């Protein structure tokens, strides 16, 4: 079981979600984040003074899935979230040792 963390451009969320559900992913958790990276921020104007916004709004997608699905999911997300323009984001995969479904207490694969 592994966790796939994807940081993507907000407006790509729908496409990615749809693509994942089509390939049978049944669950994921999403959160609003702000990113800093190669894609430098922009300057804003406030009452005559300019200032730098370093952090750009991004969306973070977390899914915990069985190992066999990993490559397929990573591939899909990469394909769907890609605009080719700087700031598209990242995908990180990390180990998960245990999973529980709160409602039923099921653990492991069945809990996903």
């Amino acid at each position: 079981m592994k966790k796939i963390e994807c940081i993507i451009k907000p407006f790509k969320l729908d496409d990615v979600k749809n693509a994942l559900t089509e390939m049978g992913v049944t669950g994921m958790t999403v959160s609003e984040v702000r990113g800093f990276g190669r894609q430098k921020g922009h300057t804003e104007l406030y009452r005559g003074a300019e200032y730098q916004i370093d952090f750009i709004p991004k969306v973070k997608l977390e899914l915990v899935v069985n190992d066999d699905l990993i490559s397929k999911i990573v591939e899909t997300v990469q394909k769907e979230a890609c605009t080719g323009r700087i700031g598209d984001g990242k995908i990180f995969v990390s180990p998960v040792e245990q999973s529980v479904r709160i409602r039923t207490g099921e653990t492991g694969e069945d809990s996903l």
Partner: protein
Amino acid sequence: MKKLIPFITLVALLGLPALGLADDAPITADTVQNNLNFVWTCVAAFLVFLMQAGFAMVEAGFTRAKNACNIMMKNLMDFSVGALAFWAVGFGLMFGASNGYFGHSDFFFSGATGDDAPWNYAFWMFQVVFAATAATIISGAVAERTKFSAYMVYSIFVSALIYPIFGGWAWGSLYHGSGWLEGLGFIDFAGSSVVHSIGGWLALAGAIVVGPRLGKFDKNGKVKPIPGHNIPVASLGVFLLWFGWYGFNPGSTTTGDTSIAMIAVTTTMAAAAGAVAAMLFTWMKYGKSDIGMTLNGALAGLVGITAGCANVSVTSSVIIGLVAGVLVVLSVLFFDKIRVDDPVGAVSVHGVCGAWGTLAAGIFDTAGFSMHTVGVQLIGIAACFAWAFFAGLILFKAIDIVIGMRVSEEEEMAGLDFSEHGASAYP
């Protein structure tokens, strides 16, 4: 409702025509005109009252969420405490029988003193909302770092002493007083100086004494903007202020007559011109039109026309507004440069443009241009700055020494909502 109270049955009689018994109660045109003056003056006063909401929204919108409750408290309180102080002391100093420098009657205004009680009430009502306006102006300039207790104290002093004394100099003779400045022929119809510059220069003194907010200037003194948290709310505030200004300027006739229309027109055109000028000027300067400045531009135009709204032509009002709109932008940048931290631009809008408006009222006087008039206006402007700024410095310094003007660093970082009121604006 009316039937229920004896002492206005006369009135009720006057009212009866409305109930179809006109013929029973003949009344004179003078009486009706007098009633009309009451209606107009009261309605105008109500509109000016609403400016309190406008100021509150502008100030809250241009500052951070963590101080929004404190700003509401300040705006509610400078009116409430201010009204009590003006009632007890200020009104008497401003309009009481006077030696030319301050009045010394009509304290704890009861309406009973002096002749002709009813009109006293109408006049007082119109004056109290003006006094509150002057006090509120300061609030924005010292926002996000000033102790609430210190705020209460100076609000009292401003409404009870500083505003009324200058007010008496310029307007005292409207009532029982008589001021040296009006004696010279000083023109300030609705208060570019009496209300706005006074407030603006006090704001300047306050901002200097309390010092800039943490993080407004980096170690090299470079400005680091602290964006306000809700621009639409600030914009609503500007619309409400503009609306209230239609009570502020035309209402200053305190008579319901034909002159109010032309005053409403000059007020409208100056505000529009101010907004347009600031918008275009920032557009040229930054390649994008700056909303904060444009909002200030509209207010700048309104402050600018306040002195001359009744004695300049429509075309002049457009010019006055255009100049004010550019002036306010330059002024905001100037005060940033000299490291005076004025979160909402109160000093630039009310102080600087108030001075401009006072001068303009002389320059564009429809009675014809005369060096003498302009000279008197300059004297008034100088007297206004001298009185407000230095009285302010002393007041704020004194408060600073006695109870302290400013909250601690921790409190400022936590926000005044929590540190002063144990609350949060958006829980």
